């Protein structure tokens, strides 16, 4: 029953905020309290193994909680808190919070769902209200992006529904349960269909087309939750589909897993490349998010204990650092009112905390120890090599190099370089953002040094399905290939840093140079001189990639759409005649039917 109450609390909070809409302070307090009540209920009461069902006439709603519920639930709730804190600084109305809370309801509800119909219901709820959230976005492109998002997520949802019906038809059970005993290849079709919405949510190529636009055109605070939180439902779905629904996928269709892994690798790489070509901070981060989610798909595709632990951990990491990055960008937008990378620069002096947040965010994104990004990447590489797919390993490695590229572009264009004249009076991001940054920095380091905290839980989730092979304790991980002790790496870095600092302080002295005191072939420059290299940052890579960069799934899709439009035009042509033509249809139809049935007359 608690599960139902949690959802109810969120819905009611949403409705309350809707009615309190104009009274901003009260609304915010209610939203926060409602959130806290719901998450307190979740954290204290949701233990693995709870079951609840509710009969609404024809359908029975079945709820169940497992280890995965708790894992993903905590991630999603945590990211929602960050979103909530940041959103208080934006100009929002009550409906915004209603939609946000309903999105949360859907997202948390999906984790509880035990049968496919309620899963679909809650999943669509989430999609629908997140669509409305995007629709209430921040610029005039938002409706368009929202539309794209809607079409894609409904596409996924319908595929899921079709899969559900096929499953129900073949197994006579609507529960989330095994289908590997079904004869024939229909089980693969079911799996594929059920997997589709999750590939869409987790923006696996070629289902990613909605993501860059929807991420960048939704309100900044919401993007934090959108990317950090909602994409986790996609990961959760991978888990459901591959482990709970088709338990014997590895023995029955190993090639299917390989395809997923490669799709993940390609996603990670291509999205990484697209990311460093972007000139908008949120677009860049959107692609970065897609790229990082690609690794997760690789982890699931490899399908060993190591790789799946890596995938889950990466999902967790993604929630932390991607939220952090989006949050910082949101804070920057709040202050400078732009996300165009070419119009910022040098903000480190004005927004040091945001800079620190972004810095460690990108360090984690790049997977540098001792942050949360490292353990999962390390484990993933080991897993892929163990699987023996060296080319995939290389592809994934290529993807992580692109992470350095876009990370640096982001941090440089916003915070480093020259401070623009009009940003001279910019202040640090306000309290909500700052709190969020600090809150996110804690897990970023703690889990980077002691990943065992999370790995233990992840192990519980998947040990029913895969033989536990990974050796781990709080701070170390061991695979047949290698062994790593995370705090040692951290300690080495810190002590080496201290040593370098000592060397630094022993020698010489420095003076603080003004930003106009710069080597410009000894030309004297004024403060508004454009010295910030941010436009066309990796422009030369366009030449390096050449023509293939122009290929896109989007063009392919547009060709398809044109085809449908053409068919639609033909169909419309049917209704374009005058009354005589319509009469002719009628007569023709009658004669045809009479002819066809003539034998029976």
């Amino acid at each position, binding site marked *: 029953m608690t599960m139902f109450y949690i959802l109810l609390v969120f819905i009611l909070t949403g409705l309350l905020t809707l009615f309190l809409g104009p009274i901003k302070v009260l609304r915010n307090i209610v939203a926060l309290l409602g959130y806290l009540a719901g998450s307190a209920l979740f954290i204290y009461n949701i233990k693995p193994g709870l079951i609840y069902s509710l009969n609404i006439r024809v359908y029975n709603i079945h709820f169940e909680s497992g280890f995965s519920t708790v894992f993903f639930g905590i991630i999603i709730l945590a990211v929602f808190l960050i979103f909530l804190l940041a959103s208080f600084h934006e100009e929002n109305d009550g409906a915004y919070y209603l939609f946000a809370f309903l999105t949360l309801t859907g997202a948390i509800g999906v984790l509880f769902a035990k049968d496919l119909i309620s899963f679909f219901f809650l999943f669509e709820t989430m999609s629908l209200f997140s669509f409305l959230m995007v629709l209430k976005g921040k610029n005039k492109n938002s409706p368009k992006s929202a539309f794209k998002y809607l079409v894609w997520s409904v596409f996924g949802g319908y595929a899921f529904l079709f899969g559900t019906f096929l499953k129900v038809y073949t197994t006579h059970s609507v529960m989330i349960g095994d289908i590997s005993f079904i004869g024939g290849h229909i089980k693969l079709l079911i799996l594929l269909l059920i997997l589709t919405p999750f590939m869409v949510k987790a923006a696996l190529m070629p289902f990613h087309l909605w993501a860059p636009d929807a991420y960048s055109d939704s309100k900044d605070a919401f993007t934090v939750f959108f990317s950090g939180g909602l994409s986790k439902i996609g990961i959760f779905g991978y888990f459901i589909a591959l482990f709970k629904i088709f338990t014997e996928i590895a023995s029955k269709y190993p090639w299917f897993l390989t395809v997923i892994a490669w799709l993940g690798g390609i996603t990670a790489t291509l999205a990484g490349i697209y990311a460093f070509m972007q000139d908008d901070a949120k677009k860049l981060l959107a692609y970065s998010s897609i790229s990082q989610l690609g690794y997760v798909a690789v982890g699931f595709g490899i399908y060993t204990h190591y790789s799946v632990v890596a995938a889950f951990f990466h999902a967790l990491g993604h929630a932390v650092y991607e939220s952090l990055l989006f949050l910082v960008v949101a804070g920057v937008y709040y202050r400078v009112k732009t996300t165009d990378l070419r119009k910022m620069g040098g903000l480190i002096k004005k927004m040091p905390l945001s800079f620190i947040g972004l810095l460690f965010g990108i360090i984690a994104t790049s997977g540098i120890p001792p942050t949360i990004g490292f353990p999962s990447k390390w484990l993933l590489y080991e897993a892929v090599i163990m699987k023996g797919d060296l080319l995939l390993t290389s592809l994934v490695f290529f993807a992580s190099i692109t992470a350095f590229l876009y990370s640096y572009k982001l941090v440089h264009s916003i915070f480093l370089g020259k401070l623009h004249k009009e940003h001279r009076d910019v202040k640090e991001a306000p309290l909500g953002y700052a709190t969020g940054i600090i809150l996110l920095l804690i897990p970023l380091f703690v889990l980077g040094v002691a990943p065992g905290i999370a790995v233990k839980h992840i192990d519980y989730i998947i040990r029913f399905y895969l033989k536990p092979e990974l050796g781990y304790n709080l701070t170390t991980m061991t695979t047949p290939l290698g062994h790593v002790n995370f705090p040692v790496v951290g300690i080495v870095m810190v002590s080496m840093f201290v040593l370098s600092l000592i060397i630094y302080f022993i020698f010489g002295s420095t*003076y603080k*140079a*003004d930003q*106009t*005191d710069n*080597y410009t072939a*000894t*030309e*004297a420059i004024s403060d508004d001189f454009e010295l910030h290299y941010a436009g066309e940052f990796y422009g030369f890579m366009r030449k390096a990639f050449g023509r293939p960069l122009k290929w896109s799934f989007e063009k392919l899709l547009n060709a398809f759409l044109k085809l449908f439009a053409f068919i639609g035009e033909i169909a419309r042509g049917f209704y374009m005649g005058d009354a005589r033509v319509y009469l002719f249809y009628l007569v023709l139809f009658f004669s045809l039917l009479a002819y066809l049935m003539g034998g029976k007359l």
Partner: protein
Amino acid sequence: MKLFKFSQSRSLWMMHFCTGCGAVELPPTMTSRFDMERFGIMPMATPRQSDLLLITGYLTIKTLKRVVRAYEQMPTPRYVIGFGSCTINGGMYWDSYNVIKKLELYIPVDLYINGCMPRPEAIIDAFLKLREMIAKGEANAWKKYIENYEWYKKNQSEVFDVEKWSVKK
């Protein structure tokens, strides 16, 4: 400290400010015929990295302000070598309206190389002389600039807009 002094004398990174025709003498000095790198002298790209500013020839007012800026951007200790007659008295541009005649008035010079043009041997000789001076602690012109900053600025302000071209410290 001594070690630093020694290394300073043995490692001179120069920024050859190719202000005038004298620059043409530097390629032979650098390349295989005379090979100044064997004395640890290397050309550098920016004033930040350089120890030695080489003024190769006459300085117009337009160039002077840039030279001053470059000089001020160099980290101390820094050295200046005036190269050719032009830096001493204007040389063949002694009556030009836009060439400064005496470099010393604007930035402190450690060493001059006489001649028009001085040959690479002379340049190398100057380098070795400077090396000696550094080792002995005699090349202290950069201190003079700090001590008599006002005076130099006054001189500079007579020919260009100091406010704009000086480095703000």
